[in-house]
């Protein structure tokens, strides 16, 4: 009999050509799929850099728009406005979404739960312009004017279903044994949900929140008749407010070359804003995690 080491060297070449061929094919197919996924992302980002990077300067980041036809000016007010509207949207959407997700996962095995699940799924498919109309009816008509708040509400309505469903999924992935461990220590149910189950699912829940955030950050339609847009600075939540997607839209369809360039720069800034905020949240969240946790 040959020694084990010898065996291995003898057996290896015997793996049939067919099996090695399919192995290579499968690997190549998987790698191709990865490239196909990364390609559009790289292409979009690269094209934005190419078109927009040259137009980003100090004035663009610190000045408000110039009157039509004049060269110069910037989108500082739109960057600030977008941040304000996204903050408002997150302040409303994240707690409601996570709360609803907790209800569905921990208490929602009943008819009300099914109703909420169904509603969330339908809401997820509602066109964003319709969400804008709803926010218009809810906030703009009652207040009597366009506002950052109305924009925030519109974005919140769009964030809620995504956050709700991902939170539910993530909480359901937490093994029941973990809940039982807490019950066994005499921890009340509400405390178990908040301090044990939700904490165990934190990274997944954050992914859901970030997904929803990134999705609404670029929304234009729901802001058209809620935040409306503004050529000047505004920090008040009940005043019309500029937003990057709105500004990009109106600049892109304008007849001026300078505005076209600024629209590209605005698009690049929007993407950077999203990437930076997601990375920041991930960084903060990862510091709270334990080494070796799964």
């Amino acid at each position, binding site marked *: 009999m040959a020694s084990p080491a010898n065996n291995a060297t003898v057996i290896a070449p015997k793996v049939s050509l067919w099996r090695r061929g399919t192995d290579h094919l499968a690997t190549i197919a998987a790698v191709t799929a990865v490239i196909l996924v990364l390609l559009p992302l790289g292409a979009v980002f690269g094209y934005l850099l190419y078109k927009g990077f040259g137009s980003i300067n100090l004035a663009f980041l610190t000045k408000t728009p110039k009157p039509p036809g004049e060269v110069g000016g910037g989108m500082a007010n739109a960057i600030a406005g977008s941040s304000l509207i996204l903050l408002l949207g997150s302040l409303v959407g994240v707690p409601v979404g996570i709360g609803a997700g907790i209800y569905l996962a921990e208490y929602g095995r009943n008819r009300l739960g099914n109703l909420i699940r169904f509603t969330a799924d339908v809401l997820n498919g509602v066109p964003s312009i319709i969400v804008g109309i709803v926010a218009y009816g809810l906030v703009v008509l009652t207040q009597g004017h366009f506002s950052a708040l109305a924009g925030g509400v519109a974005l919140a309505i769009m964030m809620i279903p995504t956050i709700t469903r991902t939170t539910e999924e993530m909480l359901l992935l937490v093994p029941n044994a*973990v809940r039982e461990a807490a019950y*066994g220590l005499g921890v009340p149910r509400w405390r178990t949900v908040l301090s044990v189950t939700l904490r165990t699912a934190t990274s997944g829940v954050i992914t859901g929140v970030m997904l929803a955030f990134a999705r609404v950050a670029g929304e234009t339609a729901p802001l058209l008749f809620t935040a409306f847009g503004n050529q000047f600075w505004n920090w008040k939540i009940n005043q019309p407010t500029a937003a990057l997607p709105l500004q990009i839209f109106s600049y892109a369809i304008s007849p001026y070359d300078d505005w076209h360039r600024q629209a590209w720069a605005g698009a690049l800034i929007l993407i950077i804003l999203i990437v930076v905020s997601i990375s920041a949240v991930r960084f903060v969240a990862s510091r709270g995690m334990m080494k*070796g*946790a799964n």
Partner: protein
Amino acid sequence: MGVGIKVEKLNAWYGKSQALYDITMQAQANHATALIGPSGCGKSTFVRCLNRMHETVPEARADGKVMVGDLSVYNGTTAVQIRRRIGMVFQKPNPFPTMSIYDNVAAGLKLNGFSDHRRLDEIVERSLTHAALWDEVKDTARKKSGASLSGGQQQRLCIARALAVEPEVLLMDEPCSALDPISTGKIEELIFQLKEKYTIVIVTHNMQQASRVAEFTGFFLLGRLIEFDKTEKIFTTPSDKRTEDYITGRFG
């Protein structure tokens, strides 16, 4: 100090199917009581009725009289109060995965609003020492997750976590079934020491384990307690034919 457990006519159901029939028995304070029987015989359900974990399963219910010391488990107390006095160790080690070793042990106190950090440090060290884990984790307790430990260490961590809330009774539901013989040996040694301070009820599939650690043994079959006696008697001269068949391996 441990307290005794008295159970009278305990019945339990999952939905419409009955899992336990009129169980009556006593577990002596500061002794270990083992429960043996084939899979599905109701021994796990029985221990889960003692600290009202049974009712966390949807549609499960139980009724009967269970006294833990002077505390009536199914009458006039909340499940949360009961579980603070009766610790539980589960079949599969279940540390909180996102908490450090330290936080795992402190969890029972912290999550119930206890926040005296110096006392907490003492309790965590004492519980880990008691569970024979302190020496292995004292340098990493705050840095490493409970889930990063080996299976045997995780189970001792779970025992430490249960001890930290200073229960009077410790329920162990097949605590060694997921562990290798060396870890099992460590936990059995631990049970010997723990008897000085706690009353222990241990469910086990391993009859040698029952005879090693427990003074009293109960044999369950199809939801009924067939025989309950001193461990020695059960394993040498059982009075019921079915017990004899089971321990000699003639069925199941």
